[in-house]
């Protein structure tokens, strides 16, 4: 039936590069009028970048965009609106202090008469037509996330959008709210509008879309009719064939439990459960990979272990001291307390220059941060940290004019070397890393892999949170898969396949929890 629908938007050979990273490579994509198209891909596969080129945030390096058969140039969000394209971003663009109607009026065409009552009436009409549930006079700060999203969609429709792009719309919604949203989207399709949904949730793709377009690492893989697709076939297209990276993986030597985690549940600041009843064991001398779509509780898991995130009652993190197997409960203790108890935790956080290092300080001072409470003199002792900084600079080949240059001025790879070097120098028994190679070039990545393996062979329990499945499959001994904050299984990295992990990541599966 899609063949009868006219092509509305067509992307031809569109490419976009950020620095050395190719976000999109020669993507070809067609969107029909009156259809729901899912854009499916892993994190970093270039879905959002591609759509940002349609919505005027980015301009393609090469390639053309056609709307109704005519080549167009979209240079700003305003251009996009003029072509009837409206995008709802993950981070809402709303003024909190304004009411719904004021927010819509803000984006109004300047030629239109300024009349809030008329705006409200037109909004009401849109709401009734598509079945939105929205109080036009409500202030945004009083709204739930779902209501804010509704307002964003109404805002875009008010401006006369024919094509709607929704960037992971259900990421912040409860299942009931998501179902309500889908109903509205179906109503929009019935009204002849085209809707593109960026997502990585397979069951949603299957339940709502007419066709699925798949991107992988910036490349366009293909488009399939949803009715011909299954979760397995989509996962295979999404994760692709395994790529050999030849990362060393020595066998673990005498692994023994280092940390036993039981029933760990965490809530975020909004009170939403982000980590739900997770239990697993971390062994010494092995690398435990943690896989999952981003925002599935990885950050909270690591921060809970580090003592930075509060844990709901009932959760337990038992630490086994290597020498005498004495156990220490880590839940409810501050990072300082954990360290004073002799637990040698090292943490390489995702936010390197925020949580990890102080950007305006040099290497020496950043080394000092970890030992801020040592010594009793009121004057600082810079000699030891300076020597440590020099050692790290030599051993890890950090490219910097000197150890006193602010680390902010270093490249991403060198910043990461400084951070990892410092954390390893603390001779940890547990080393946690979050996205340790994100944004790094190949050489630096392999340096990090080597350092992690050295730690593993020295008997350290290494936790590696990663996003690249190929790396996770090659460096880890076991992989814990998180899905929507729940533990969806632990697999043996030596025998599992990419699509098995991919399925676990995207599909919460009851049976999978007994998989091991």
């Amino acid at each position, binding site marked *: 039936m899609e063949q009868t629908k006219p092509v509305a938007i067509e992307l031809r050979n569109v490419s976009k590069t*950020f620095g050395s990273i190719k976000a999109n490579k020669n993507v070809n994509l067609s969107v029909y009028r009156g259809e729901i198209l899912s854009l499916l891909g892993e994190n970093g596969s270039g879905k959002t970048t591609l759509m940002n080129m349609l919505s005027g945030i*980015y301009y393609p390096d090469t390639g053309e965009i056609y709307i109704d058969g005519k080549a167009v140039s979209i240079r700003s*969000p*305003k251009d996009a609106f003029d072509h009837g394209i409206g995008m709802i971003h993950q981070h809402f*663009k*709303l*003024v*909190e*202090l*304004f009411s719904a109607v*004021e927010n819509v*009026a*803000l*984006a*109004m065409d*300047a030629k239109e008469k*300024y009349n809030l009552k008329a705006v409200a009436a037109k909004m009401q009409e849109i709401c009734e037509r598509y079945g939105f549930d929205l109080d036009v006079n409500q*202030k945004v*700060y009083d709204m739930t996330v779902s209501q804010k999203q509704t307002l964003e969609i109404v805002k875009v429709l008010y401006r006369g959008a024919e094509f709607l792009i929704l960037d992971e719309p259900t990421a912040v919604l409860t299942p009931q709210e998501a179902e309500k949203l889908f109903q509205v989207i179906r109503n929009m399709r019935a009204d002849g509008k085209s809707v593109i949904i960026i997502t990585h949730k397979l069951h949603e793709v299957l339940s709502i879309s007419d066709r699925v377009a798949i991107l992988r690492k910036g490349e366009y893989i293909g488009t399939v009719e949803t009715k011909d697709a299954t979760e397995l076939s989509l996962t295979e297209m999404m994760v692709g064939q395994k790529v050999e990276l030849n990362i060393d993986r020595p066998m673990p030597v005498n692994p023994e439990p280092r940390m036993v985690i039981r029933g760990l549940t965490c809530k975020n600041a909004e009170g939403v459960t982000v980590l739900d009843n997770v239990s697993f064991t971390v062994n010494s001398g092995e690398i435990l990979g943690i896989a999952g779509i981003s925002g599935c509780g990885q950050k909270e898991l690591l921060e809970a272990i580090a003592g930075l995130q509060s844990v709901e009652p009932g959760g337990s993190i038992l630490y086994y001291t290597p020498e005498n197997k004495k156990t220490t409960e880590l839940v409810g203790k501050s990072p300082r307390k954990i360290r004073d108890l002799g637990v040698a935790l090292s943490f390489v956080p995702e936010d390197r220059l925020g949580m990890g290092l102080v950007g305006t300080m040099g290497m020496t001072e950043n080394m000092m941060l970890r030992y801020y409470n040592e010594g009793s003199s009121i004057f600082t002792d810079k000699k030891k940290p300076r020597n440590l900084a020099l050692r790290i600079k030599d051993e890890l080949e950090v490219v910097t004019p000197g150890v006193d240059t602010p680390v902010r001025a270093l490249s991403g790879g060198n910043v990461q070397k400084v951070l990892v070097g410092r954390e390893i120098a603390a001779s940890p028994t547990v080393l946690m890393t979050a996205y340790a190679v994100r944004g790094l070039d190949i050489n630096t990545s392999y340096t990090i892999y080597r350092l992690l393996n050295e730690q593993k062979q020295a008997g350290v329990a290494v936790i590696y949170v990663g996003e690249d499945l190929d790396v996770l499959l090659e460096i880890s001994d076991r992989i814990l898969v998180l899905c929507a904050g729940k533990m969806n299984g632990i697999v043996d990295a030596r025998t599992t396949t990419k699509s098995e992990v991919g399925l676990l990541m995207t599909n919460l599966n009851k049976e999978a929890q007994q998989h091991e």
Partner: protein
Amino acid sequence: MLSTILSWITRAILFGVVIMFGAMGETLTEKSGNMNLGTPGIMCIGGAFGFGCTYLYEMNTDNPNAFLSIAIALVCSFVVSALAGVLFCLLTTTLRANQNVTGLAMTIFGSGLAKFFGMFIIPSGVVTVKAVFANKLFTKRIPVELGSGKVATVIEEVFFGHGFMLYVAIVIAVAMSVFLKRTRAGLNLRAVGENPATADAAGINVNKYKYLATSVGAGIAGLGGAYYILDYNYGGWSTGAAGGIQALGWLAVALVIFAIWRPLNLIWGSFLFGLCYWLYNYIGVFGVRMTSAQSALLEAIPYLVTILVLIISSIHKKRENQPPAALGLAYFREER
């Protein structure tokens, strides 16, 4: 007794008009997300140039024209102050300098510039020069006669016993309130101060709004300085005058917070501040005798009230009573 109280009220209203202008300018500026702590300095500039130009005009003309005298004072004061606002915006919006530091520097610069400029007007050997003609125009009462009864006198003194600038100030405050609440440009301006990224995404030229609001705001604040010299200070300019304007300028900044960023609140707030400020001089009416140290403490009441308002509105956490969300923050479009 009655006449003392009336004189207290009159003094408070005159005082209130000075800080109302300053606070209106600052409110408009802060609505755009710019926190211009240079307002006291800008008021000094406005006072010096407003006074200076009209003084030179009346000294060099045989038959000064009333309309021209007022127009010269107001236009010069507004334009030069607005230019100072443009300078502030250039430093903070375009060059992204820290707003607080820039503002404080502007205050120091402004009062210095006013003193420097004022030196050329004051002949050597004289302490104060007076713009007699302009002073007469600015203090001229609105011609309203209500008869001789006690009630009539009170109404006449309180509501009509003042120069035209009081009414100009009230009109500006009302107009500003309507502008912010009921017009598209006002909505856009508030959006810029609340969430510039959203305003930007909606196609609003954030920098244009910041520049316009800051310079017009500075201009309005500058009028307060001109009013201080030509009416409140009896038309007299001395090298110390800038210090007096600056002191009131800080009260104007406090008044913005007191009025929780609402122009209509500025009207009664400024008169209340005036009553508090002049209380030390009139407290004798209530039979209270004070030492100068004690009365100096009384002068601090407006500041204490402001702190109280700030604390209460923070505790209340009502979103409408908070400062513009992006106040004091530089905005630049995120680039990847």
